[in-house]
């Protein structure tokens, strides 16, 4: 067991867990933040994506020790004060179907817009092709990202 401290959704947070535990399970089981989803556990599907120091990070393959002294944002924290431009765009475009992959989609898009507020179609394709959606919400995700980017991102 190790004591690990990070800033989670704006709050300093300390957990006492095995330092190899993937961040995903620390968020979901230790801290009870269940928006971040388990899809594959292997870094393939992107459902578990969170922002770690602003980078899209697959929490299922990120040992919690790598989060030490980092800033973590999950979907619960993204629009806590006021909905993020992406969340508004997601509602406007009615993106989700079952909704299970959507936390990973939104967090990946948030990392994209943070680094590149006006992404080209190709840049959107490249970034978002790493996040799977079994329900097929891809065309709407694309529209929503463009809508959010036009509104100036955030």
């Amino acid at each position: 067991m190790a004591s690990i401290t990070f800033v989670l959704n704006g709050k300093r947070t300390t957990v006492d867990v095995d330092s190899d535990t993937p961040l995903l399970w620390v968020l979901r089981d230790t801290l009870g933040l269940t928006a971040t989803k388990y899809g594959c556990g292997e870094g393939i599907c992107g459902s578990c994506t969170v922002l770690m120091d602003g980078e899209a990070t697959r929490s299922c393959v990120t040992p919690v020790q790598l989060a030490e002294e980092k800033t973590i944002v999950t979907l619960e924290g993204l629009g806590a004060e006021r909905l993020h431009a992406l969340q508004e765009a997601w509602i406007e475009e009615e993106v989700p179907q079952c909704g299970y992959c959507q936390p990973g989609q939104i967090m990946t898009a948030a990392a994209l817009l943070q680094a590149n507020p006006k992404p080209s179609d190709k840049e959107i394709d490249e970034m978002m092709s790493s996040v799977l959606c079994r329900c097929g919400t891809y065309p709407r995700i694309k529209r929503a990202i463009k809508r959010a980017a036009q509104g100036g991102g955030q």
Partner: protein
Amino acid sequence: MTSSNTIDRREFIKVASAAGTGLVLAFYLPATADAAVDTSGGTFEPNVWLRIGTDNRVTITLSRSEMGQGIMTSMAMIVADELDADWKNVSVEQAIAHPKKYGSMSTGGSWSIRGHWDIWRKAGATARMMLLSAAAAQWKVEPSTCKTEPNVVLHSTGKKLSYGELASAAAALPVPTDVVLKDPSAFRYIGKRMKRLDTPAKVKGTAIFGIDIRRPGMLFASVEQSAVFGGKAVSHDATQALAIPGVVRVLPTAKGIAVVATSTWAAFQGREALKITWDEGQWATQSSESIWATFAELSKEPGTSGDKAGDALAALPAAAKTVEAIYRAPLLAHATMEPMNCTADVRTDGTCELWVPSQSPQAAQTEAARVLGVDVERVKVNTTLLGGGFGRRLAADYVTDAVQLSKELGKPVQVVWTREDDMQHDLYRPMTYNVFRGGLDAAGELIAWHHRIVGPNSRGLVTGGSKPPYAIPNYLVDYHLKEVGVPIGAWRAVGPTQNGWVVESFVDEMAHAAKKDPYEFRRALLANSPRLKRALEFAADKAKWGSKLPKGVGRGIAAVESFGSSVAEVAEVSVEDGKLRIHRIVVAVDCGPVVNPDTIEAQVESALVMTLTGMIKDEITIERGRVKQSNFDDHRLLTFEEMPKVEVYTIPSTEPVGGIGEPALPPAAPAICNAIFAASGIRIRTLPLGPDTLRKR
């Protein structure tokens, strides 16, 4: 759109609110013939609840599962429209499972809207009439001088009262025995792009799926099942698993060996450390190739006759031209993004509560009662949001262990399947081997059709949707069903998904053999199927069938009627360097009245993604009695950049209400395969496409 506007004798509506608490209407309206409830004993088991609070809120109980198809919103739209409710005051509550009162609570067969269109409308209209009557009584005026606007009753003099103000008075009135349903031209919500009620929570991260359930003191479990179907654990060594911090117990269950722990991760880790000796059982040498060989062998023998007309076997040898082809439809996984899971809390008083992302909460309830040996009434089932269903969650095989473990541990237990468990212990879409023979007369008319299907042991799953919709004087569908030790189940669009592909592909082959245009060839044969014919024509028109295409681009068409709707699709594709490029897909849908056009478009987009995944990505294959694929690296899904352009058109229609969750799947694969043929001359008879399938031989 036949809606009787009277409440018949099998229907019951009662006021169920206590005095002064608003209006709660409890309806029993038979959903289907099979939902007949015995009310003779005086018990009244409502299947629709509608509550209008003194705070002006409208709350509707939903007895179907929300799995992304938008039923929560569509149902509310239908009730709210007839009620003349203000949309921003409407919310939906998920029904707790009941063995009888809702009839079948299964969410499948694209049934939710088509099975409840009338009931939900009557529920809303009845409440509206009672509120209006309450206002008229209060004002001492004729009800005919009153009307409703969203959440208010208005009098011609300008007086008005809100539904909230009227709810308690309405509850004291007799329930009307006949109500007038709106003329469709008066619909406020039905037919409009209404915002989905479940979207905000899904976007903010507050939506609760089964896997997100957290109960005080709960434990997490992961179960190692036999990789080979039908295998059993003979013995296990738990020493190393128990040494993992957080692992609480290791014990055998109905499905295999369970590791119970204080976190999901500890349970997964414990599983890795288990040592199990298996008896692999009778299927340990089975492979996809051996199954295909068995099916091919069987296909040589006459099968059990299914749909038929005339005498196909006699007409074939007499035909001027015959065509033969063999089609192989692959095993497919559901691969919902949320893996199977169930949370159970079995209490010492013998009651049990489940939280389960299920398409059939009653199946979950029955299974839990069976495991515990108690009456179903002792099992309370909470249906959570589903992270995808596609038919997989109609079964309750993921409930069994959670119930047993909670009972043994005396605590709430959540069983979570790993992605690998989910991929390797699915109930797959059956693989089928299809032998076709078609005959043309000298004029190129299709006069004979024989389709022999060989598949696993479930008639409905294997032969559903195989009856050709065309006017063929002599046709025969016969089949062999063979147990092959691979669990199968309903996969989105079920029989019509594989049979739609093979039938619509082979019709295309016959059109080309007759040297006729594939669209005109079908059209001429659809005289007796006017609805499907109209969809075909609509799609062809929107796609400008027959117009010139750039060099190398081919067009394909297909039309299938399933789940009460007719759908036709036209694909434009090219094949470059052995690679498929889809330029455009045009989809024409006749699902009768349109509830939410946005949801229809979403369901069609979804159908295309699901179909393409099954066409150009990975199938499920069997090796040494087990599934070879295990995760999204060897069972890939269609990705963002592979999504083609899809144009969706709903056909203005006065046909009966149809489904939309499934019917866009069956025509998708054949439209694309027929376009591949038009573009490249390569006829696709085996899916998925292999890496070299589209290279010119």
